[in-house]
Every structure is written in structure tokens, then in C-alpha cells.
């Protein structure tokens, strides 16, 4: 397929995944804060600051706003057009990319993303948000899930679809690592212990932010501990948002595109991805905590960025550009 088209499929998919993940992060953290026994502004602010840090949006936020209030953060991450990571921006970008590849994707996919874009643009989204932010985020996530389903059900599972998979799993692995990292940025309220109530509530919020609560409970017999949650979100081989699962899918899509056997590599993207994949296959959560979870997640994000760059260089860029 055309290099430009591959690039657009890749980014279309990244933006969809990013919007979905941001919607879920806002939903969960808003609910988490409502559960705080202590609603003192400094505590609430500290929490939202941690969320902004995970989304790498803090600097811009500080430029645009005076202080951190829950409403202002929701507004900023959801609707602020000046924010390049805002949900409306991601959806608009996804749609713009879809528009350039309309003849490659199915009409159903196009109409699905276009409807979501119009929903956010014409005031209906805003009205739902004003009624109930939680319902609004759920509705949005549903629409984006519908896009994923439509994609799988209506598009040829050829190169274009594989580039969509690349974008989806790269962004998703990145997003899971960030959500997990929230826990590093949130401090426990004073007097709370690791493993205490507040700690467990926070880990549960992390799981919910990855739609992983129910799946986790099926594998861990009711106990929520930081160790096990991290193991689940980093290393579980069947949970579709774990970093390992995503990297495995990434590797598999890369090899479908190149027709190269798995376990071998034919380009830099495959080499980097294969290295990451095997390190995730053969590590333990004990080793991860030994490095330090935050450091490990930081490194993982860096390696994902390198893979993304290598994909672009291998497939989407030409020397004359």
C-alpha cells in the first residue's frame, strides 16, 4: 500500500486509542476522587496533577490555567482545542487521517468515526457531558469500541488493517504503562500504609483505567496488591491491554506486513520489537520491581517510541522527503 496511506492508518488508529484511553482515565479518576474521605482541595489537586503528569499535559495546562480544579482538568483533557492530546483533538485528528484514506477503510468505519466527531462538535457531546460526565465518557468509549469492532468486521485484514493494529497496540502499550505510572505520581494520603485501604483503592482505580478490574479478579482470587496488579498489567499474556500482550500483537502485525517469520527480523522495527517482546516474555515482576517499576515503565515507553520511529522510517518515509 501507499506509504502515506500506511502512515495515516497507523495514526488514525493511535488517535482513536488515545482518545479512548484518556476518556477512561478521566472517568476512573473522577470517580476515585469522589470516594476520598478527605475532599480537601490540596489533596484533590495533587491527584489531578498526577493525572496530568501521566498524560504529559502538565506544562501546557499550567500555561493555560491558573489553578487545578477538577472541572478545569476535565475541560482541558476533554474539550480544550489548544491541547494536542485532548479527546476532541484526538478524534478530529483520527477523522482527518480517516478522510485521507477513505478509499482504504470501509464506509462503515468512516461513518462511525465521523459520527463521533460530529457528536463532539455539534454540542450533543457537550450537553451529555453537562448532564453527567461519567455517562458522557462511557458513551464515548462505547463509540470508540464500536469503531474497533467495525474495523475488524468490515475491513480487509491486509496491510492497511495491520497498520491499524500497529497503531492500536503501540498506543495501548504506551497508555497502560502510563496508567500504571500514575500510581508512582500519586502519593498516599498521610497516615496511610502501603497495602492499606487507600492504597488498594488506588490500585483498583489503576485496574479500572485499563478496563482490567474484572479480568484481574478472575486471575487473582480477590486480592488486590500492587505487586499482582503490576504483574497483571505488565506481563499477563491473555489480558488485551497488558504491555506484553500489546507488544506480542505488535510483533505479530509487523511480521505479517513483512512476511518474515517470527523469531527473525527483516528490518529495524522488527528487531527492536522482537527484543522488547522477548525481554517481556522472559522477565518476572520481581525483576521489574528490582529495577524499580517507574524506571522500568520509563524505559518501556522509550523503547516503544523507538519502535514507532523505526516503523515510520521503514514503511512511511522516503529518502527524498
Amino acid at each position, binding site marked *: *500500500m*501507499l*506509504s*502515506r*496511506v*500506511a502512515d495515516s492508518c497507523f495514526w488514525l488508529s493511535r488517535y482513536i486509542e488515545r482518545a479512548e484511553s484518556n476518556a477512561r482515565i478521566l472517568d476512573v479518576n473522577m470517580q476515585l476522587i469522589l470516594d476520598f474521605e478527605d475532599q480537601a482541595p490540596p489533596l484533590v489537586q495533587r491527584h489531578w496533577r498526577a493525572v496530568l503528569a501521566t498524560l504529559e499535559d502538565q506544562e501546557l495546562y499550567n500555561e493555560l490555567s491558573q489553578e487545578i480544579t477538577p472541572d478545569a482538568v476535565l475541560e482541558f483533557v476533554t474539550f480544550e482545542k489548544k491541547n494536542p492530546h485532548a479527546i476532541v483533538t484526538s478524534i478530529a485528528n483520527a477523522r*482527518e487521517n480517516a*478522510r*485521507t484514506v*477513505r*478509499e482504504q477503510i470501509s*464506509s462503515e468505519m*468512516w*461513518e462511525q468515526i*465521523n*459520527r463521533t466527531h*460530529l457528536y463532539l462538535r455539534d454540542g450533543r457531546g457537550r450537553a451529555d457531558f453537562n448532564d453527567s460526565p461519567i455517562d458522557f465518557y462511557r458513551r464515548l468509549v462505547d463509540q470508540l469500541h464500536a469503531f474497533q469492532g467495525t474495523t475488524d468486521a468490515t475491513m480487509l485484514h491486509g*496491510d492497511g488493517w495491520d*497498520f491499524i493494529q500497529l497503531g492500536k497496540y503501540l498506543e495501548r502499550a504506551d497508555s497502560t504503562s502510563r496508567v500504571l505510572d500514575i500510581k508512582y505520581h500519586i502519593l498516599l494520603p498521610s497516615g496511610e500504609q502501603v497495602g492499606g485501604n487507600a492504597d488498594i483503592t488506588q490500585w483498583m482505580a489503576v485496574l479500572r483505567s485499563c478496563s482490567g478490574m474484572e479480568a484481574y479478579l478472575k486471575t487473582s482470587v480477590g486480592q488486590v496488591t500492587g505487586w499482582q496488579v503490576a504483574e497483571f498489567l505488565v506481563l499477563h499474556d491473555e489480558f488485551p491491554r497488558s504491555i506484553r500482550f500489546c507488544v506480542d500483537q505488535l510483533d505479530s502485525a509487523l511480521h505479517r*506486513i513483512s512476511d518474515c517469520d517470527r523469531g527473525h527480523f527483516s528490518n529495524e522495527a522488527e528487531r527492536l520489537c522482537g527484543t522488547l517482546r522477548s525481554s517481556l516474555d522472559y522477565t518476572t515482576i520481581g525483576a521489574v520491581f528490582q529495577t524499580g517499576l517507574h524506571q522500568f515503565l520509563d524505559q518501556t515507553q522509550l523503547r516503544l517510541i523507538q519502535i514507532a520511529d523505526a516503523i515510520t522510517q521503514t*514503511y*512511511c518515509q*522516503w529518502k*527524498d*522527503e
Partner: protein
Amino acid sequence: MNGLLKDYEVGDFFDEMFSAPGVVRPHYELVARRLGEMADGELARKCVLAEKSYLNQGITFTVYSGDEGTERIFPFDLIPRIIPAKEWEHVERGLVQRLTALNLFLHDIYHEQRILKEKIIPEEIVLSAKHFRPELIGFDVPKNIYIHICGTDLIRDRQGVYTVLEDNGRCPSGVSYVLENRQAMKRVFPKLFHKYPVRPVDRYAQDLLAALRYVAPHDNPDPTVVVLSPGIYNSAYFEHSFLARSMGIEIVTGNDLLVQDARVFMKTTRGLKQVDVIYRRIDDDFIDPTVFRKDSVLGVPGLIEAYRKGNVNLANAVGTGVADDKVTYYYVPRMIKFYLGEEPLLPNVETFLTSDEAERKYVLENLENLVVKAANESGGYGMLIGPHASREEIEKFRAAIIDDPRGYVAQPVISLSRSPSFCEGGAEGRHIDLRPYILSGEKTSIIPGGLTRVALRKGSLVVNSSQGGGSKDTWVLDDDEPVPESGQMTNPSALRPPPSALS
């Protein structure tokens, strides 16, 4: 008449639906009845439904103002335009004849120039045409086809005679609306379709692809065909992408292509892939910065060299714009006689050449009664409608004509036919035209009907989308039999011969 058509005024025009106030033409009877039966607000609701479906599908064009583009839909009028089979047969024959002559003309002026040597058309008219490309003289295009896709604008005069207003032989647009309008009508009026033998239009994309494949270089039996678009910021991007999708081929922008060893390739994830036929929706001027406009960033450097070496074909051919020229238009009836030895089946609109001294004098004395058109503009730009123009505009055109007599033509104001169109509160007569799309490939094929554009502003004669125009679905009937015969139908054999452009 009741319902929507209750207060309909036919006016002093040829009306497509009514032969006289209250008298419906036979082929419109069922539609008129259906409109009459509609409850209050039903059509308005259907209208909202149709608009929403256009918006959701992204069938829009972008209007830029400030930093944010606004997407608009091309207004769609739900009352169809119906053309009886016999009428269409005549139009079709006329268009095939016209396009055959235009293709022969283009071949001739880029080769022997017989028509100039025999002084049928003054040499300087062609050689001074803005879009004449001397670079292509002596160059043979595959299968001798220059205009692969033509959009010829037809109007009906006060007597209902189909008359040619202009030919668009470069990159005519609008065909996607023909196909989408039909889809919308089927959703909104499913039952009416059962009652009318409407000829389908959905073969267009397949016919277009066949025509493009037919002209591949070196008779390549399995050519790679692409659509070349200026990109998503072009107002017709929806159409480019629609056509690529309907043909199942790639849509590319200039940056996706490169030329090596006089061959054109597209940049793919699996390396370079050679391209054989390009359906380009970029004008000559912008297509290759090494040959035409140097500042073009839309084109492909080296493309024209690859074209001249016969390694890639372009549709439409380079240099067809000379046939669009409104001064050339004046001579098309003579071309038909010259190349085909036939009388033109479809007349031209009476036209005055301001390059001719006597005609210029007449034009300058009668500007307030005439329509003046720049020879090389399209889309309703560069036009003066005398009776609606201010003193200032008239003087501006007077100066322009004196300054560049070759650059303009003038025509009497033609009262385009009207068709009932849905307006606030009911149906009112609005002026319409018709743009059929003609494909030249192994054979010449014409989409049944074409795009009926409607000037939605009351009294307006300008149907262009940039100037408040909308469109209607156009139904060509397969068979006139089910519609009761009546003396009110226009009988093609009764169509009068063209008013001679030579007098």
C-alpha cells in the same frame, strides 16, 4: 393541485413539471400526486433526514474562513427531475456527436491542424487559447482519446429545447453527487422508485475504470490506475476519494508519486510500484512544475516527460482546455460539420465573439442585456449578468473587453427551464441545468441523466455550488410506455434546428 403544489406558479418559463398552470406533464403525474398527498411538514422532515445522512457520510465540501474550515453539504432538493426516454435518446445522440467532434478537433490541432488550414476556425483563436499546449504538438495519445471524461452543461430554453451552454473537458466534477443523490432518494422515496422505470446510474464507476484501463500505454492488459488528487483540502476531495473507492483503486497526491527514468512510480510500503494510467483531478498548470507552473507543489516533477515518452497516460489528456475555451465553444457546431459532415443535434446558445469587430460593437452597446463570460473561467466566476449587474460592474467588463477582446464572449440572457423545488413552506419554481457525464473509452457511454443543478436563490440563474446552487436527483426513464401518452410531451422530432450561430 393540492398540498405542496397548491400555490405553484409556473411563470413565464419552460417548466419541467407543468405544461400550463395546473396541468402536469404526464411523466411527472405520479410525483405530483405523491407530493400532493404529503402531510404538512413531511417533505421538510425528509429533507432533514437526507441532510443528516449526507453529513454523517461526510459528503461535504469545506469552506474556509478564519483558521477553521466549515464543512457544508451541497444542498439537495428532494423533488426529482424526470427526463422521458425519447427526450434522453436525442440528448444522448447529440452528446456522442459533440464529443466525437471535440476529440477529433483536439487530435487535429495537435497534429495536421487541418481545421485551421482550411480556415474553418481562425488560426489565432486556437493558437492564442490560454490552454493550448504547443508542447504537445505531434504527440500521439493512446487510442487518440483526449477527453476521456467530459461534463457538458445543457440547459433548456423557453421552448424546452436542450441547448449546450458549455463543455468541460478538463476535470469536470460533480458526478459523485449524481450517485449519492440517487442513494438518498431511494432512502427517502422508496415507493416512487417502484412506480417509475428509472434507469440506474451505479455502473458509472465501472465504466470509468474500463475507460481508463482501455487507454493504458503499450496496450498493457493489466494496468495500474490511480486517481491523482490535490489532497484533502481541495473542495472536491470527497469526490476524488469516492471515485477511487468505487473503482477500488488508489487515490494519490503528488507527493505519493515520483518519476525515475521517465516512468512514474508510487511510493508504497513494499517499495516503488509503477503507475500506468492517472485519472488526474489537477489542472495542466499544476501537474508538473518542471514544465508548467514552477510554483506548483501539487504536481509531480518529470510527469510530462514520462507522458511524452508514452510510459504513462493521463486522463484527461494534457491540452484539452483549449476545447473548454468559450471562444472555441462558438465553433463547435462548425467542427461537427467539418469532421463528421453532420448537422449538430444539440444547438449552442447564440454567442457573440468580442474579438469580431462588428459583434464587439453590438456587445458593448448592449451590455446591460447580455451575459458576458470570460473565455477561460469556470464555476460561475468571471461572469457578468447584464440585467442584474450594477453600473460599476458593467463598466468594469466594458473596460476588460476592450482591453482583451479575445478573452470574452457574450450571450443573450437565457431563461433556463424551471422545476418545482422544495423551499420554505412549499414548492417554488427554480432554474435548473443539466450536466451529463460522457466517458470515451472503447465506446462512448453517458451516465443516464447526470447532475441537475438548481439555482436555489429565488430568481437566480447561477447554479454553481460556490454561488448558492444545489442539486436534484435526475431520473431518465427506461421506457415511456407506462406513462400515458399526451400531446403535452415534448416530441424530439419537433425540436427545432439550432438557431444558426453563423448569422
